[in-house]
């Protein structure tokens, strides 16, 4: 079959290092069927020549699973933060613009440092401590109806899109962002996790915590996993309100 020589044009916002100034570079690459943004970036890596025909450095990005479950490959594609592994070129308007997310510090080119999110998860103790010196046997059972909604929350892949969309997560604020709030709801819903639920709520009530949310509700509109983030936020608002009451007036529960 004769090739029609179809090409794809990408305008990429690049940055050589954390401290250097960003610049834009355009690439025109040969089109193949069913390409996604990552295969386009791989093409550039294979042949790092920009649209002017100059040899340049390969564009750096992060990836892991290639099936939208690890969250590592998030970037701003045509103005929208999303995963590059599931961004199909056929569905994107050209020239395709790629830029790193703005909420996180740039490591290089499209790779950003999402430490802020992992620090937030540590702050709210988003795990269930079960390690002990002996086998404690099976834990309490979880009701099926609860498991169903909790499962939706467990789909979070720490991709950062909700933080990117949030007007209150930025360099001027310490706000932990929606993802970690929803993770507290997840682990507090778990029957074993619930044994430490106060510790997680205390984390949410710390500086940079849940109270910094201003209810713009962009997060729930943006989450690629459809996680009901604003329901989690409101539910944790209720839990922390009750916790404050218990802390002050006292409670055995």
């Amino acid at each position, binding site marked *: 079959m004769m090739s029609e020589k179809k090409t794809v044009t990408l305008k990429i916002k690049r940055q050589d290092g954390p401290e250097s100034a960003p610049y834009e570079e355009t690439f025109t690459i040969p089109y193949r069927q069913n390409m996604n943004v990552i295969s386009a970036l791989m093409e550039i890596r294979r042949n790092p020549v920009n649209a002017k025909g100059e040899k340049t450095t390969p564009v750096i990005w992060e990836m892991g699973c290639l099936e939208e479950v690890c969250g590592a490959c998030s970037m701003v594609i045509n103005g929208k933060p999303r995963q590059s592994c599931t961004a199909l070129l056929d569905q994107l308007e050209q020239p395709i613009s790629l830029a790193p997310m703005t909420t996180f510090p740039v490591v290089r080119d499209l790779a950003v440092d999402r430490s802020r999110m992992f620090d937030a998860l540590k702050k709210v103790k988003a795990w269930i401590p079960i390690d002990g010196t002996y086998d404690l046997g099976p834990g309490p059972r979880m009701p099926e109806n609860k498991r169903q909604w909790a499962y939706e929350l467990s789909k979070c892949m720490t991709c950062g899109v909700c933080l990117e969309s949030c*007007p209150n997560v930025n360099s001027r604020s310490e706000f932990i962002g929606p993802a970690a709030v929803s993770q507290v709801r997840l682990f507090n819903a778990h029957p074993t996790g619930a044994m430490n639920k106060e510790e997680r709520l205390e984390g949410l009530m710390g500086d940079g915590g849940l*109270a910094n949310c201003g209810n713009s509700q962009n997060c729930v509109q943006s989450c690629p996993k459809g996680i009901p983030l604003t329901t989690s936020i409101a539910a944790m608002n*209720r839990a922390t309100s009750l916790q*404050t009451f218990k802390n002050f007036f006292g409670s055995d529960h």
Partner: protein
Amino acid sequence: MAASRDFVSRKLHSLLGVIPLGLYVTQHLTVNYFATRGPEAFNDAAHFMESLPYRYLLEIFVIFLPLLFHAIYGVYIAFQSKNNVSRYGYLRNWMFYLQRISGVIVLIFVTWHVWQTRLQAAMGAEVNFQMMADILSNPAMMIFYIVGVLGTVFHFANGLWSFFVSWGFTVTPKSQRAMTYVTMIIFVALSVVGMRALFAFV
């Protein structure tokens, strides 16, 4: 287990916006509404408010101190956010943005309004129907008051929506949507009250 500064300040800011500030604004607009019944009715109502017992305590603890804290911390919150309605044009994001813009409008309006009425009263002027009629006979002042009152009423009504989320009353999307309608009805109703009172002076 001491609660953090962020948490306490934010919760206090949220609470003060409704209790007492929101209640006070509603009460104030209601008293002003007496103007629709003529100068005498307004003067009587205003005089009744002025002659409440321990008036200064009420003014300081129900209005002045809560307003001072809410306003100062409100400006800090407002300038901490990076608004992005051009990229995320959803209704609630617009409301988030308008909450901050209206907050700044309230700050300017209330500062001026307090200077023009309460502080003048403290310096010997009498606050009555005639005073407001004189102020509002100036079309520029009338526009300023219309914007100020609408801005304040919006800020309170939309703030009430946010308050119900911030304290965990409205958790489900359904209840939050219902609250959007309820608070917008409050916005329209209080706007009618405020506008009718303003136009009663001209």
